[in-house]
């Protein structure tokens, strides 16, 4: 039952993002819901768990979006991996630290998307995405609200 919790939360996040995106397109610019469980599992289960969660969430998201299959998977896997590595070395307990980690992960995820698209010749403009700051703020608020303190992270 516990093993199903991880994929279920990821699927729920992707579905919720899709539903909310349909209802309030503008509101969805403010957060990347699938990134939150990826970050949770990055802190809770380390880089390998983050990779699996990131690829799963990303592929599901890609399949629901009109984009390159693997784009979100790569960006979320990379962001999750980095946070997982960070969680192995630091106790991400203080609130400000968590906010910083979520903000950094969001920036990494979005930057990876932009860079990958540029490499693939899909998007050559490197002008900062105007929605990036909105995403950072929204993800931080949502992440702090949704994430309970990962025990593994606090134990280190």
């Amino acid at each position, binding site marked *: 039952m516990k093993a199903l919790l991880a994929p279920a939360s990821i699927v729920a996040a992707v579905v919720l993002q899709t539903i909310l995106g349909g209802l309030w397109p503008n509101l969805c610019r403010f957060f990347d819901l699938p990134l939150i469980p990826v970050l949770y599992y990055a802190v809770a289960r380390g880089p390998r768990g983050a990779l699996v969660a990131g690829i799963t969430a990303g592929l599901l998201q890609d*399949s629901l979006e009109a984009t390159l*299959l*693997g784009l979100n998977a790569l960006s979320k896997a990379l962001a999750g991996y980095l946070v997982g590595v960070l969680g192995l070395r630091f106790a991400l307990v203080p609130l400000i630290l968590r906010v910083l980690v979520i903000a950094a992960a969001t920036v990494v995820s979005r930057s990876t998307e932009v860079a990958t698209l540029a490499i693939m010749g899909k998007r050559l403009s490197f002008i900062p995405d105007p929605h990036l700051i909105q995403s950072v703020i929204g993800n931080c608020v949502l992440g702090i609200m949704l994430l309970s303190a990962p025990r593994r992270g606090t134990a280190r």
Partner: protein
Amino acid sequence: MYRFLRERRPEVLLIAVSALLFILMAVQVRGNGASGSERLLLRLISPLVRAAAVVSGGVSGVWSGYVDLRDARARTEGLEADLTRLRVKAHETEETLRENERLRALLDLKQVLPVSSLAAKVIGNKSLGLSRTLLVDRGSADGVRQNMPVVVGDGVVGRVWTVAPHLAKIQLITDSDAGTAVLVQRTRVQGILQGRGDDVCAMEYVSQHDDVQEGDLIVTNGLDGIYPKGLPVGPVERTAPGPGEMRIIAVTPRVKFNRLEEVLILLSSEIGTGATPGPEGS
């Protein structure tokens, strides 16, 4: 080499995954369409996509339905308020039209009548016991004097009973103390119309030999010195043998006293000085 890979397994995994994903994306870009892997993944997750679409559509439908319902509710409330305002306005218009009709009838009557008259608004209608009176908004300041006759288009209403500067009390012909000199229009048979305190008056002092039939119109005969001659009162409702040589004649006034809103007070000096004294004269 193997040891290095074991020690750096996460990093190796990341690189491997990234490389795979890059290849996947590159294939899509080069192929300019859906690759086999994409089709496979899409096939695998299509149930989820469809479920998400159904859920999204359902939630969206519920939400838009809710929003529409709220909009509809707000619009309904606005329309109901408009409807209420329009109803009030229509009612006011109808009232104005009816008042206009009544006043026009009074005006017509005023032009027909041989004496000058004054329109007055009914401000009170009192029926206490056998007493039947009206209060109007004209008084001595307007030239109203005691015993002046009061009429409407349908016929005789009564006479001025008491006068204040800006108010007058009218005794209706149905008042139990009211007596009016009348005649049968068809046969000119004369009598006294006596009020009984209800909606029907009695025409008295008519012989059993006189020709009076149901439906005959009763009009004033002018002999009481109050009402001008020829004002309609109402039709004979029924006749019956009375005591001795007399007969009982029931007359229903045409005027609907409980629906009066405006009346005409006849101001002529030749009338209104009749023999029947009011309370101020007695």
